[in-house]
């Protein structure tokens, strides 16, 4: 007998999903099932953070273009602390390739500040 409880984080509904003897219950949609299977195998998350911008005081918001294994997120943050983006950028531009193979992309477009 095995029983485990999860809360699906794939949408604001936040279904409570119970897994008992390989049976998955409580998810309101298919994404919940996929989430639980992934969570039991290897929990992964999208990373959202910011990076520095060359010659500017403000930060550029970025995210991982795919999910990163949870335990590697801290390493990614360490790598990203050294990154400096160059303006202008467009939303979706690849800003950095992490050692996990997942790209970090810009989540907004930004022009250079006018002098």
């Amino acid at each position, binding site marked *: 007998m095995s029983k485990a409880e999860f*809360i*699906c*984080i*794939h*949408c*604001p509904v*936040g279904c*409570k999903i119970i897994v008992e003897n390989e049976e998955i219950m409580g998810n309101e949609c298919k994404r919940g099932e996929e989430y639980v299977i992934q969570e039991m195998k290897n929990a992964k*998350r*999208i990373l*959202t*953070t*910011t990076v*520095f911008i060359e010659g500017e*005081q*403000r*930060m550029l*918001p970025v*995210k991982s273009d795919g999910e990163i294994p*949870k335990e590697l*997120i*801290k390493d990614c*943050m360490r790598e990203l602390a050294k990154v400096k983006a160059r303006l202008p950028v467009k*939303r979706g531009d690849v800003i950095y390739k992490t050692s996990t193979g997942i790209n970090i992309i810009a*989540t*907004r*477009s930004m022009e250079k500040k006018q002098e």
Partner: protein
Amino acid sequence: MFAGGKMKAGIVVIGGGPAGLAASLKASEYTDVMLLERDELGGILQQCIHDGFGNFIFGKMLTGPEYAEHFIERARDAGIDIRVGTTVLQVEGKKIVASGSDGILEIETKAIVLAMGCRERSRCQILIPGTRPAGIYTAGTAQRLINVEGVMPGRKVVILGSGDVGLMMARRLTLEGAEVEGVYEIMPKPGGLIRNVVQCLHDYNIPLHLCHTVVDIKGKKRLEGVVVAKVNEAMKPIKGTERFIPCDCLILAVGLIPENELSRQIGVAIDSRTQGPIVDERMETSVEGVFACGNVVHVHDLVDDVTIAGEIAGENAGKYAIGEFERIRKGKVIAGENVRYVVPQILRGMEDVTSYLRVEKEMENVKLIVSGKKTFEKKYRIVRPAEMVKVKVNADILTSNEVRIDVKS
């Protein structure tokens, strides 16, 4: 230097967050629109870099800036007269005075859309005693410091309040290398969505202390620590449970209040429960030709609902400006049992309505009952104060002078 001066616009939208952007876009289908924003377009979304936006409108989770940019691009293409860095100072009738880089503008308009969003509750509004050292921030200010300006507010942090913003900040600070000692919540349940408790606290082993509050603040120039204590059912601190936590940063994530100085100036009637303008289902306020949408009306959990409200306000402001809007004020909606507030509060009573309501307390297996000319019932497995309840009601139930909404077991 003084390119300012007198101008005219069919509609003026005040505030360029998701509400104002959606309203401007819709309104521009009817007449010329001027959008005034004191900072940059996107509003609070530009500092909400996490993903969690647009699940219902886009069918996927976007970050705040991504969600905003979709609408900003469309607003630029729609030929809207967008003026950023422009603060509205005063509204008198349908005359608006704003100040921006071009000097002082005086704009005459036919219709106004209020979309100023909300601001945060601060320490004085929740009455924490103690000294006033540096190192105490509201969650939104801290979010802006880290995500936009790249400045860390502290190294060892205590967070008061477990709403979504507090939860997000706990994760963000941890990722950036700070130590979050814990999140303290005065209520017996977390204030934010459960998914955020999971992905922000559980993922990073950050403890959540329910039924706790901060009772004292220590430190002279810089914060040196806070005293937390358990609270009883009446939310009063329990003697003997006090605990000192050394920290250099306290984050207050204790809620938002609609920003309604301008609305009051115009004479718009304010609902004491929502702290926002009283509106009907077309988002018209008590002042004719003045519409309102988004967090200025009531604090929303989901930006998708803000966009929808913005579109309704924009469409009807547009119709008003071209003389195709008839003002009707027929029924009113009463917030009944276990209902803290309902929006809209006033009904024209002729069309189907989506009512938004917040419950007072968490309840399981409840019925939501709408009683008007007829009665309508809907079952819910669970209702929580942290999650807005949305219910679509048919016009034939609403054609009555008084409609009441109750949530009972």
